[in-house]
């Protein structure tokens, strides 16, 4: 048997050259719209066979889907695609070039941050004016058997109550903080979650004695399972309402029509059925 030939011996320089070539290949496959072009691209141009990409705050996903179904029933040429996620994620994706025609954020703060970041990314872009979409009020929920015997929101001041709310940095937590301030509550939550879904999960599983969520979450949870949890009535504090807004990002005709429908009477009807309040 002969000795096998050395297959390849790479010197440092050759290896470096190879790395360079590899990087070039990778760079060529990379995203091209680094300058924010995606913001100006419409997915469709006319009412016929147009697609509208709606980036929607997770809490609005179901109701906006219903509204989209109503809309497409009357406009069969239009396809509406929903991408649900948290408002911060949606904003980050759009700024990174994801194609979106419409953005719905759960609160005004998220929209303001998005528009500021967008203007910072490209000072030439045209200013966008968001439209109020709906408002959402807070609700107090307890597990179905109410283990801590909570009868009113003042009971949350009692020591030993396992209260779970959203972290002050997210919209539902910011709203909860305003509620506590207006009602002079001095609660000490055992957990401050990153999303309202996590608060709801802690209550329905019985881990928490009480949670502060949105009225629409209660409605959706009870529609799904009428024994999921119990709602305790609390006074309505307008200061703690969360105002959701919508903004149209492209001048796509179909997107314009859908935005008008969404913020019009037929959209509002669906939003109110889901437990949202009228925009203020």
């Amino acid at each position, binding site marked *: 048997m002969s000795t096998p030939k*050395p*297959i*390849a*011996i*790479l*010197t*440092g320089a050759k*290896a470096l050259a*190879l*790395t360079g070539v*590899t*990087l070039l290949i*990778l760079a060529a496959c990379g995203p091209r719209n680094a300058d924010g072009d995606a913001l100006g691209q419409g997915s469709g141009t006319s009412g016929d066979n147009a697609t509208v990409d709606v980036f929607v705050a997770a809490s609005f996903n179901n109701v906006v889907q219903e509204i989209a179904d109503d809309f497409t029933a009357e406009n069969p040429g239009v396809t509406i695609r929903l991408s649900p996620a*948290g*408002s*911060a994620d949606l904003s*980050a994706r759009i700024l990174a070039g994801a194609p979106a025609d419409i953005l719905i954020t759960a609160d005004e*703060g998220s929209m303001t*941050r998005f528009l500021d970041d967008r203007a910072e990314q490209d000072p030439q872009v045209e200013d966008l004016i968001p439209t109020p979409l709906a408002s959402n009020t807070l609700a107090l929920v307890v597990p179905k058997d109410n283990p801590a015997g909570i009868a009113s929101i003042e009971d949350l001041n009692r020591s030993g109550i*396992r209260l*779970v709310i959203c*972290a002050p*940095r*997210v919209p539902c937590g910011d709203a909860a903080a305003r509620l506590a301030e207006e009602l002079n509550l001095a609660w000490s*939550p*055992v*957990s*401050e*979650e*990153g999303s309202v879904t*996590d608060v709801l*999960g*802690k209550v329905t*599983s*019985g*881990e928490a004695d009480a949670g502060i969520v949105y009225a629409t979450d209660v409605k959706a949870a009870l529609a799904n399972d009428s024994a999921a949890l119990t709602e305790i009535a609390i006074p309505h504090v307008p200061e703690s309402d969360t105002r959701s807004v919508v903004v149209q990002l492209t001048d796509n005709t179909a997107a314009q029509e859908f935005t008008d429908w969404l913020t019009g009477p037929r959209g509002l009807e669906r939003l109110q059925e889901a437990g949202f309040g009228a925009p203020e």
Partner: protein
Amino acid sequence: MALRSRRGRRRIAGLPVLVIVLAVLGAVMIMVPVFALASRTDWLRVPELISQEAPLAALLLSLRVAVATTIFSVAFGVPLAMLLARTDFPGKPVMRAVILLPMVMPPVVSGMALLTALGRRGVLGETLSGWGIEIAFTTVAVVVAHTFIAMPFLVLSVDGALSTAGIGSEVAAATLGASPLRTFFTITLPQTAPAIGAGALLSFARSLGEFGATLTFAGSLQGVTRTLPIEIYLTRQTNPDAAIALSMLLIAVALAVIVVVYSAGGTRYVRAATVPGRKGS
């Protein structure tokens, strides 16, 4: 084996070009995102951010939890790996599969599994609750969640090393009259030390990065259950730049751990544990 050129530099020998191209692609795939994140970091703000209360509390909690998780993983995982590698009983393959399951389970599923077992209304939790023991929303719950997820990595590493090493030396020691305890300490343990080291490093790393199960099972409260990854996620909601700076903090800690372990002879350990057939020195 590395050849040395006349200039004395180490050269890559005997590797096909294809392997090198794929290796470079593999390295690029991992290094580009990390360097991209670093390039977006506002380094001047890192010291200011770290000295703030919330990130500091999250960092300290993460480190405390990771140390505790590593200790528990080693304390329970090593005996468990030995049981799996050195004994035979009906249902062992099933048991091994279930024990390794948390490695492939989505963390949120692990969190739900822990809730149904140890939650207030869980299978065990209800009894514990009756005794006045409630771990929900405490740091203990975080450590429990992390151990559940991290220990399988240690078990896998040690179990593999033991199976590869075989029982020859142990049988010889026993034949020469060594008691099981003596055999364990003089043969089995030194033989598996590299794998235990590698497994402990993996457990520590897994704990440092854990997010989903903690959130589902333990909650999120500053200084109690809000670990650094949860703090980063929360910060990102309102301040993505600060979140990137915090991410660099996490990466720095992770890098420090890897460097310390490697320079303390961990290289040998980690390699020995992952190269089949090689025994620890």
